[in-house]
């Protein structure tokens, strides 16, 4: 069942490989273009290809050291996971990459809550942070907490950021995300604008979870990583929300 935050979520996937200084990049781009028939392909300075599929709110990004995806909403990932895995596999084969320097999946979820920004911030004290009174010698009136935690989770490295966001903060934060303009078909298209407006409409609980593996990741592991990281990211968002609201985690 889709989660309530599905439509207020940005996802990023990146498979990094040793830089290609030869002629593999255009060959790979051409192969992907033929096979997956994007609606549009942009070639940007710095040898960056951006493949776009209108209406699907997904981008394929290709540079000489990275193959990545970016989507608006989490549902696109769920529905097209197999396609994404095939594209990555075909792309890396065309690039003749044998090992990856890094592979990562990042979810930025703005989980809407029917409470104020101040209340959201207050709920951090207890479930995540020491009770409010313990902070008063450091900050007499703590508000707007932000937590960043690095570590490992289920065999992957993880960087987790939790915060409460008011609409202005959410809007600013989303506008700072890379490539969002590329989701628009043209200058008058409002896909990105509508997404940000909806995502930043009310105070929200930000869960930014970045799951990754580094150093000599075998190409064969990509498909498994895609499956595992999606499930893990979803479970981290759900568990974070459950903890914030003091609910038993599923």
């Amino acid at each position, binding site marked *: 069942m889709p989660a309530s935050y599905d439509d207020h979520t940005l996802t990023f996937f990146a498979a990094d490989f040793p830089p290609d200084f030869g002629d593999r990049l255009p060959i790979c781009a051409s192969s992907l273009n033929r096979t997956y028939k994007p609606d549009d392909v942009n070639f940007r300075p710095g040898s960056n290809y951006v493949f776009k599929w209108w209406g699907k709110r997904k981008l394929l990004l290709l540079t000489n050291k990275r193959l990545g995806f970016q989507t608006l909403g989490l549902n696109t990932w769920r529905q097209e996971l197999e396609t994404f895995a095939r594209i990555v596999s075909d792309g890396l084969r065309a690039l003749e990459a044998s090992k990856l320097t890094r592979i990562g999946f990042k979810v930025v979820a703005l989980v809407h*809550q*029917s*409470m*104020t920004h*101040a*209340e959201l*911030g*207050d*709920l951090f004290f*207890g*479930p995540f942070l020491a009770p409010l009174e313990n902070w008063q010698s450091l900050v007499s*009136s703590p*508000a707007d907490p932000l937590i960043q935690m690095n570590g490992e989770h289920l065999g992957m490295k993880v960087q987790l950021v939790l915060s409460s966001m008011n609409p202005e903060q959410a809007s600013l934060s989303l506008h700072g995300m890379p490539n969002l303009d590329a989701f628009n078909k043209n200058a008058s298209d409002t896909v990105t604008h509508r997404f940000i407006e909806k995502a930043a409409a009310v105070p929200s609980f930000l869960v930014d979870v970045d799951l990754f593996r580094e150093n000599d990741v075998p190409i064969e592991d990509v498909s498994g990583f895609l499956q595992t990281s999606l499930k893990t990211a979803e479970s981290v968002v759900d568990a974070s929300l459950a903890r*914030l*609201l*003091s*609910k*038993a985690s599923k």
Partner: protein
Amino acid sequence: MIRPNTDTADLEKRSFVEGYYRGMIVAGRLSSTRSSSTYEVPDPEAQAEVSLSIAQPLEALPLFPHHNSPQLRAKTKIVARSVGSQVGPPSPSYLAAKRREQSAKIMESVNRLASKANDRAFHIWTQEPLQQIKRLIHFLDQAEEFTEVEHEGNACEILRQLRDSFLREGWERFRSKSVRDTVVVLLKKLASEDAISAKDADHSMDALLDAGLEPVLTKPLHGGRKRNPGSKA
């Protein structure tokens, strides 16, 4: 709920006539509304006494038919209990989250009583859950004092039943595992549900009575004994 399109003077007059008066500072100006309505205060920590001027001639008000003064000064206490810079009453989902969080802590305290069940000074150990229950009742009561709907009213009812169960000789019953288990089941509900229904409160009452507890005190707290003169209530 503040009625932004309502004339302030009219509200003031009406509230006097009806005899329910509450004064509030709203965004630097004075307004008032009935006590059954909710409140709005710009500074959440504000607790001040203000002077209120009524613009209408007081003869017009049936409460003061013979008053000649053109002005009435009324002292009003403003108390806000909101979070951070929030204006207005707390959100139901916030209160539910706080109730779940605190109920889980109370549940842990009740569970910890198991290790002290045979202690001679057991009543001292029961103070921890009792105080936690009282604090949570106080928090929820205060938070919803001015709201039109009490979302946590049934939760408070269960908490009051639990509080009363500890009073008089009730604490002694908590030495029994079955009594603690009964209470833990009720607390688990408070610590997990989005909303607590009136049916839950009824069920809680039955469960506590079945466990031999006294969820509603039917006799004086001190057994009807005469107190020493001068002793505090």
